């Protein structure tokens, strides 16, 4: 009987561990390692209250990561999902204050093919907003879709750009990889 209880206890611990780390692992995909990326290389200590206000007005659920960037996860068609980041740190060009909004498309390995790079450069001539860039992390190329807008953009403008970035990045991920990693 005593041994039976010990076995049950062990089973409980094993299941608890599985659920805890299992779920964490589900969220700890490559998007997680990209999470702290700010394509412009600037970092902020905290979330930008202008973005926070806009997201609350729009009714979007979000998380704020440790360097103050906003992380939103969107459900998309065919049961897919797509993660998007809004960078709190802004860039200044003279009197222009600009903010990056980006979403990962695909991990392309150590050397993207000619066909892929050609296709992505050509696609850049067709987007209403934003562009595809490559970012190299740990010797691996990541294709990222990024848009830049005024740091003081209204909630409505932010919403337009969020929708465009999420939709484009997820469509491209599906086209390039058939997967739904991000």
């Amino acid at each position, binding site marked *: 009987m005593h041994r039976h209880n010990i076995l*049950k206890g062990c*089973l*409980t611990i094993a*299941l*608890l561990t*599985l*659920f805890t780390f*299992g*779920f*964490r692992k589900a*969220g700890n995909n490559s998007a997680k390692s990209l999470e702290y990326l700010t394509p*412009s*290389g600037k970092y902020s200590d905290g979330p930008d209250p202008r973005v926070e206000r806009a997201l609350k007005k729009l009714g*979007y*659920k979000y*998380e704020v990561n440790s360097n103050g960037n906003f992380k*939103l*996860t*969107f*459900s*998309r068609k065919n049961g897919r*999902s797509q993660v998007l980041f809004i960078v709190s740190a802004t*860039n200044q*060009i*003279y*009197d*222009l204050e*600009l903010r990056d909004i980006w979403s990962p498309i695909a991990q392309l390995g150590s*050397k*993207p093919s*000619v066909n892929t*790079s*050609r296709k992505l*450069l*050509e696609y*850049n*001539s*067709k*987007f*209403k907003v*934003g*562009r*595809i*860039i*490559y*970012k190299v992390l740990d010797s691996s*190329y990541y*294709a*990222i879709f990024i848009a*830049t807008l005024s740091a003081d953009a209204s909630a*409505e*403008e932010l919403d*337009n*750009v969020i*929708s*465009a970035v*999420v*939709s*484009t990045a997820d*469509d491209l991920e599906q086209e390039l990889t058939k997967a739904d990693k991000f």
Partner: protein
Amino acid sequence: MKTTHIVLMAILFGIVVPGFRVKARQAEATSYRSERHKPANTPDPRIKKALEKLKLDYKITDSGDFKVSFNIEDEGRMQYVFIDSGTYTLGSMELRRIWSPIAIFPKTPSAKVMNQLLEAGSTKKLGGYQMVSDKDGSCYITFFHQIDADTPPDFLLIYLKAVALPADEAEKELTGNDIF
């Protein structure tokens, strides 16, 4: 303790621990890719007014777009920037493209060049690199950005310079020439 109790406890624990988030069901978006914008043929009077206010020399192309030339300070080089008269909408926003030519390749550039361009895009505060292929196989590389169609003159000037500079740098690096 029954097995079902153990499973139930584990599920509850899984739900309350940080890191487990139910993905928010948020708005489904539509596609935002569009075909290359058709020429407007008629110059946008808003741009004409802004360029005149900025006292910038410009020409109007056959397709009704604006061609502005900039002297690149300290380099003795010059660079053209085109402003599309044609605009398009994204929700409530009216946008237009501005772009600056970099190089024409007789055939598809090497993977190294294309990767370099896409990677260089990650170091810019705005804008990116694009390529348009012609029927004869030649590839036209430009640096571009999308801006509000009603951008006031002072900001328009900043955007134009922010597009001219990386285009000229890329032209110098890729071709060594100053054609554009």
